[in-house]
């Protein structure tokens, strides 16, 4: 069998072009191995060959996200790889975001097996761990020796279409997909060991982390609410009557964005709820009970607020998987920022 073809992505620093001052470096394709690719090649042995390396500056990539992604994708596509590896980015934030973005794009758009590696606290890890395999590395380049064999091993598995093991077996950052494995010790013994660690204040790793309850620090208050542009968002599933976008009653796969220019009041003839999570009778009688457009319009006229944003966003709240709800909100928040919205009123049932 011929060797698998691998394309590797690294930033300007690891290509030894330069540090921050060279971070604007535009994407470039070089034949063969560059820099840390050597360690990967050693780990691949005879099974795979790094045929080319894409180099791109971190600033260039992050400041020209769409353009840079397209350019890099084109270079990768042309090299016809069987496997794509980015990084590892260790604890470098912008490098991590670049590695995650491009790995995700290669997987989704080119359909080529792809993975990357980074330190678990790299912001790119949280952003991409559920969409691509990210090998968990140490927080500095000193971790390359550790990371290369893991990346090569998982890379070969992906390229050959073999079954991927549990995160602790194949060394990737847990991605929310639960995979079974046989442990060397039975569960009761693992429980006793974990308890001993807990008693003695030593570190231990739970086998199933509870859903995380992370916090975001509060944004500063709105200085002049009477002149602020305010948007209404609801997880109560209010939609124009007839549910034109067919928002599902639970586990919705998309969210709604609706124009309320000239709408002063939501009535039973015009709006209803698509939410399957509560008795819809009251919201269908008067959707202002969930999405208070009527009062917001009065506030607008009275000068209590500057203006009501032209669109409202709607989702169906608790039925929707936390993951997709987060993704929806991240997406429409960008639009809100771009349109100069200064505050949001989010209503939930």
């Amino acid at each position, binding site marked *: 069998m011929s060797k698998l073809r691998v394309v590797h992505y690294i930033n300007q620093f690891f290509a030894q072009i330069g540090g921050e001052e060279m971070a604007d470096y535009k994407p470039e394709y070089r034949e063969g191995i560059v820099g840390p690719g050597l360690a990967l090649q050693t780990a691949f042995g005879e099974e795979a060959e790094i045929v080319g390396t894409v180099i791109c500056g971190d600033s260039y990539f992050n400041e020209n996200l769409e353009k840079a992604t397209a350019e890099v994708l084109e270079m990768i596509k042309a090299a016809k790889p069987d496997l794509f590896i980015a990084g590892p980015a260790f604890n470098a934030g912008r490098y991590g975001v670049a590695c995650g973005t491009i790995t995700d794009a290669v997987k989704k758009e080119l359909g080529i097996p792809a993975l990357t590696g980074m330190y678990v606290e790299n912001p790119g890890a949280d952003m991409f761990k559920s969409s691509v395999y990210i090998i968990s590395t140490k927080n500095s380049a000193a971790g390359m020796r550790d990371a290369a064999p893991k990346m090569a091993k998982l890379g070969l598995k992906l390229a050959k279409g073999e079954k991927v093991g549990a995160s602790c077996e194949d060394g990737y950052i847990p991605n929310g997909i639960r995979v079974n494995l046989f442990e060397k010790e039975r569960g009761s013994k693992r429980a006793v060991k974990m308890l001993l660690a807990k008693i003695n204040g030593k570190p231990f790793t739970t086998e199933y982390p509870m859903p995380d*309850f992370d916090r975001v*620090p509060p944004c500063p208050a709105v200085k002049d609410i009477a002149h602020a542009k305010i948007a209404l968002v609801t997880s109560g599933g209010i939609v124009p009557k007839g549910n034109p976008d067919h928002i599902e009653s639970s586990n919705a796969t998309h969210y709604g964005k609706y124009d309320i220019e000239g709408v002063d009041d939501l009535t039973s003839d015009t709006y209803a709820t698509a939410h399957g999570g509560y*008795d819809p009778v009251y919201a269908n009688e008067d959707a202002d*009970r969930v999405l208070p457009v009527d009062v917001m319009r009065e506030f607008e006229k009275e000068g*209590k607020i500057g203006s009501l944003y032209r669109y409202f966003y709607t989702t169906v709240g608790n039925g929707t998987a936390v993951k997709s709800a987060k993704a929806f*909100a991240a997406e429409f*928040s960008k639009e809100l920022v771009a349109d100069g919205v200064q505050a949001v*009123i989010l209503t*939930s*049932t």
Partner: protein
Amino acid sequence: MVKEIERAGIPVVHICTVTPISLTVGANRIVPAIAIPHPLGNPALTAEEEKNIRRKILETALQALSTEVTDQTVFEVKY
């Protein structure tokens, strides 16, 4: 959802019937609502009374948005 909006840099007030859930999902400015099937209304009241309640809740929401907070804060509505 509330966290993602706040993360984007826009202050958000969460009007929510079940404030403990709102606390769990990480909202920083919280205004309690009336009831799950009708958070900003009450079908037992007349239309006028109902709208009055809705105004009070939203006035509290505007006040919450105009108030600096350092931690999760529940703004009670004064009916």
